């Protein structure tokens, strides 16, 4: 559990870094909906996936 949780935290951390880097570098010249807008939407879906992966086996 511990190692798995830390792995997913690491994944999310990388996604967060990407959420800053990508829109302000490679996507900075794309003034269309499929630019930063789509990127952040996909980032949000990935973040939801990471949250789900972490709490999936939790039972109280």
């Amino acid at each position, binding site marked *: 559990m511990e190692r798995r949780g830390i792995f997913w935290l690491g994944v999310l951390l990388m996604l967060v870094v990407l*959420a800053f880097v990508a829109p302000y570098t490679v996507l900075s010249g794309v003034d269309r909906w499929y630019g930063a807008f789509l990127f952040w939407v996909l980032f949000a879906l990935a973040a939801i996936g990471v949250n789900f992966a972490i709490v999936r086996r939790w039972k109280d």
Partner: protein
Amino acid sequence: MSVGLVWAGVGIYVLIVTVVAFMARGGMGSGSLVDYFLWNRDMGGIVGALSYAATTYSAFMLVGLAGLTYAGGVGALGFEMVYFSGLVLVAFFGPRFLLVGKKFGYVTTSEMLGDRYGSRAVAVVVALANCVFLIPYSAVQLAGVGYLLDGTTGGAIPFLAGTVIVVLAVSSSAGLVVTVPAIVRAFFWRRGTAAGVLASVVLGGALVAFLELAGLRPLGGASGVWGFVAAVVLYVGVSFVMKAPEGKAAEFIGYLKRGLKDRGAV
């Protein structure tokens, strides 16, 4: 929007909140700290989610984020998504808090950290930091409602009146700050008296409200800062003037000390 309609909306809101508060009060079991703040650690998923939503969808988001989008465009989406991804901290640490909280009876994080590191100083510093960082956040909530009422009524309900409504209805910012010394010292200072608590909360809260409404920032300090200073001085000062409390305070702190010792905390 017509001013009457807005006033009616505010009135209905206050009424509903009051009714809900009374209903919740009737449904409370022991009336203990855990019951009040954590619903006896027995809150279901739906109410838990609603509680999270109520925390998140505040003026910070409804007013602040809308304004950020208006001012900065799609970049606001990035800001919000990164903020939202922080929920992973709840997913990861939530179960840990839940387990140790149930095991050792913690209500707040400062309590837990103080116990965990065996240091009162840690608990106090964490509690103080929480309060300090909540001051701007709370202030934003007040300002948000003020701007909303001002904007939707075209200035008929001025920003100040909107702020007064929130101060009276919620009093979260001032209340939060001025109760700090009383709460913190309740666990550590045997000499603290009820009169000291009352003086610090009531007069400290009044000072915060006065500075906010008058728009004053003495020496450049925010109202919350002065409210906090006043609350500390009043609590300590009044407690020293009054007769030392007997019975309960010693019993309370003695019980805490024994409980902490039993759990291996220093």
